[in-house]
């Protein structure tokens, strides 16, 4: 964030206004010439880019948020594909992470490692066993996250039911749903210029209030669920509001307050579990009563599959946040305050009010994510670890999704898939689940260091990418 120029020699980026504007104007004036010179380049890269196009389209969704929108012609699209745009960098970051993950799988398997001892004598042994270990691990990762071909075969042959076919997807969606909420919570705050590190705490408050509403209030089925969800949202909103209010009124930095409130929330959860009326009467360990069936999110594909209504709510929330950001006056205020609080203030927007609102809404989203953890199918009672790491993972998801609502949804899906696949990888290929965490971390590191990815793959620097860079700077 600090642009202290240690060398005393000015760097070109640091001349903010006019330099930049002039450079830009010159470049637009020369646009035709520019296109001419890069043309040959494009022809030469098209071959490489085409197979990647398929992956980009499936993994990253249609890159509609790219610069020109409708004005972008197909040729320009193909040419840009190998330049350093968001989707390409994201896909390549995932590829890089998987490659490094493969090395880790090889290194961590003693049997495979042993074959490297006589690499010179029989290199085929080392290569074959490495390939076997890596492909087995990643195949199981895929089977656990997307679909298992064997289950499909059984279903077609009539020897198996349809449930095993959809089980991996069901697992992926189950893990993804809360991450969508916390990812949105972090993204929304970030777009408003705030670093919400407190999604964890907000989710924790959400889980507490949702669970309390879930087993303390005797309500009829549908109403009970709605009340429990609202309670969860309220809990998170309260926690977010606290940080936003402190920021707006006293200028306390939200990073500090949200982190500290995370601790408060965590220990509040640990405390409240063992209170009378909350603690499960027939248990000696730290676990609360179970949420009533009437307050649980209904499962979408029957009792055998864990996927529940939470994922539908997550998609709805994604749409709502997207609408809020781009099509609402509040979103306009939020984006203006996030990009330039001074200009927003001068234009009559109340910066303080916006900060408070943003944090409250972000907190409500995180709170809903927390509610998913106790009203959904992963747990039905409060335990000290019921929230898992969804708040902190939400930060990663937001970063991976480039703080855009639909990007966040896709990133959450990827993280959910890694989680679900990791479970299967652990039991079938005996590669430990921690590898998944390493993969997640590596992906995020490569995303946060786009220059690294660009250097490794020799991407052309795209003009489009410069605008996106500003976000990486903030983290």
């Amino acid at each position, binding site marked *: 964030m600090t642009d202290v120029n240690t060398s005393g020699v000015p760097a070109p980026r640091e001349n903010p206004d006019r330099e930049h504007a002039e450079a830009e104007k010159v470049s637009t004036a020369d646009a035709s010439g520019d296109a001419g010179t890069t043309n040959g380049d494009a022809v030469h890269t098209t071959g490489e880019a085409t197979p990647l196009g398929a992956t980009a389209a499936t993994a990253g969704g249609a890159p509609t948020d790219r610069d020109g929108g409708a004005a972008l012609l197909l040729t320009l699209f193909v040419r840009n594909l190998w330049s350093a745009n968001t989707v390409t960098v994201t896909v390549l970051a995932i590829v890089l992470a998987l490659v490094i993950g493969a090395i880790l799988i090889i290194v961590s398997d003693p049997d495979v490692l042993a074959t490297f001892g006589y690499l010179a004598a029989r290199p085929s042994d080392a290569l074959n066993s490495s390939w076997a270990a890596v492909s087995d691990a990643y195949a199981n990762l895929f089977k656990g996250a997307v679909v298992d071909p064997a289950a499909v075969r059984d279903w077609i042959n009539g020897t198996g039911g349809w449930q095993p076919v959809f089980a991996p997807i069901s697992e992926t969606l189950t893990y993804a749903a809360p991450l969508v909420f916390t990812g949105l919570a972090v993204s929304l705050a970030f777009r408003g210029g705030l670093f919400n590190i407190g999604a964890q705490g907000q989710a924790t408050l959400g889980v507490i209030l949702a669970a309390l509403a879930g087993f303390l209030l005797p309500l009829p089925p549908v109403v009970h669920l709605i009340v429990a969800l609202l309670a969860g949202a309220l809990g998170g909103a309260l926690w977010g509001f606290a940080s936003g209010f402190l920021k707006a009124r006293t200028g306390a930095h939200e990073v500090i307050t949200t982190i500290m409130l995370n601790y408060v929330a965590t220990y509040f959860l640990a405390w409240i579990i063992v209170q009378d009326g909350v603690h499960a009467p027939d248990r000696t360990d730290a676990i609360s009563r179970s949420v009533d069936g009437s307050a649980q999110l209904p499962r979408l594909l029957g009792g055998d599959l864990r996927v529940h209504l939470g994922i539908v709510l997550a998609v709805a929330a994604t749409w709502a946040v997207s609408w809020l950001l781009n099509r609402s*006056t509040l979103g306009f205020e939020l984006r203006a305050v996030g990009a330039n609080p001074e200009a927003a203030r001068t234009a009559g927007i*109340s910066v303080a009010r916006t900060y408070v609102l943003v944090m409250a809404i972000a907190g409500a989203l995180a709170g809903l994510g927390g509610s998913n953890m106790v009203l959904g199918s992963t747990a039905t009672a409060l335990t000290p670890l019921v929230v898992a790491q969804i708040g902190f993972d939400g930060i990663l998801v937001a970063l991976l999704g480039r703080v855009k609502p639909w990007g966040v949804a896709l990133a959450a899906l990827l993280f959910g898939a890694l989680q679900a696949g990791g479970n299967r990888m652990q039991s079938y290929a005996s590669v430990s689940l921690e590898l998944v965490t390493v993969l997640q971390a590596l992906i995020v590191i490569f995303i946060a260091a786009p220059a690294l990815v660009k250097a490794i793959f020799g991407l052309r620097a795209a003009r489009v990418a410069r605008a996106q860079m500003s976000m990486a700077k903030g983290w």
Partner: protein
Amino acid sequence: MEPGEIHALLGENGAGKSTLMNVLYGLLQPDEGEIIVDGRPLRVRGPGDAIAAGIGMVHQHFMLVPVFTVAENVMLGAEQVRGGFLGFLDRRRARRQVIEVSTRYNLRVDPDAVVEDLPVGVQQRVEIVKALTRDVDLLILDEPTAVLTPQETEELLAVMRALRESGKSIVFITHKLKEVKAIADRITVIRRGRVVGTAGPDASEDELAALMVGRTVSLLVDKGPARPGAPVLEIEGLVVDDDRSCRAVDGVDLTVRAGEVLGIAGVQGNGQTELIEALMGLRPILRGSVRLAGERIDGWPTKRVLRAGVGYVPEDRSVDGLVREFSVAENLVLDIYDQPPFGTGLVLRPDAIAASARKRIPEFDVRTPSAEAAVGTLSGGNQQKVIIAREMSRPLKLFVAAQPTRGVDVGSIEFIHRRIVHERDIGTAVLLVSSELDEVIGLADRIAVMYRGRILGIVGPETPREEIGLLMAGITGAVDGAGEAEPARPAGPGTPTPTGPAPADDPGNEEAR
């Protein structure tokens, strides 16, 4: 470039002046072509190469570390160490160097002063000293006068002359014609990245301006007599503090009538900024009252003031006026986004915003690739036109413009001035704050001179410049003849450091403008 020559590079914003000089200084790489120094082609890969070849540059935005002293800033990047591997910084030597250079070229700077405490003009001097300690033969000054007061500008020109005497060459980048004529030996005009002409200092301003924009421009503001109506803005006894709780506005009384332009002249840092911000509800008012069409608006939030029919062009457009990341269309509704047809309640109507942008972009001659382009990619003049378009496209009672043409090219200045006069002619009260005396004299029907938080006098635009200049320096004696004259001395930060007695200083100042 000849040795001992001042070569002015003249061009509109975005003409390519700064780009050219950045190439010369090694910050950017040329696509083709070469640079020849002393008959040999020079490959400049970075500022290091440029300094080695004897080229120094003073940037438009200063490259100084605010919390360092002058001496520390000067040695930054070429730190002298002693004590062998221990590497103690040799601050004493740096101090000596600063003193030596500053006496040799008559550039007065205190080596121990902390840079952030210095006025802008002195900071610039530090930059020049820094370049000179590197033994440069060619000094590039990128729009050095954009941030300076008239007095500081005159001092800078004197420094440039002194440097010329000692055989240094100077490239002087600017778009202010008067300065060019005052000092340049040779003038090269650049337009759209090409050299369009070379002229001597005897070329007329109109010729130069025409070369710059590629057509003839009227430098004088063309306007009829004002027909002042009822008072719209009435300020009484206004007292406002600045950010450091120092008194910035100290009992100001002003009235602006419908259909007139009241210009506030004054050297920057004399409370104009705080006065305007207080009017707009951006800064708390300690005492006094502000009335808009008879209604008290002091204490109102900014949004309410804007809604009451006040248009506001803030002083620093990139900080306060625009959200650089937002599109032109979004910036055009930055303070009316929640008003129909752009938004009702929580719902924003992007179609209406885009439609209004399509209408207003041609109307206000904003040169942009599209309404969706980020406003930060536009040139300064076009950014300013976006603000003007936004503020002028709703019915106004009062139009407040602070430095409306700062850092704006000649063609855009002409356009903005015409719009302001037009706004006056349809009966809006206009309050104009500018540190360009020419602009105030050209536009205003009455001129209020502000000095150290007070209005020293209100005069007509036909008042001789010298008289206004004296008022700006805080000398009231020349106007009312009474002995109330206050000696001109450095006041708050941002105020100039006049040399010698003010009357002697002033004609020189006039020449510079």
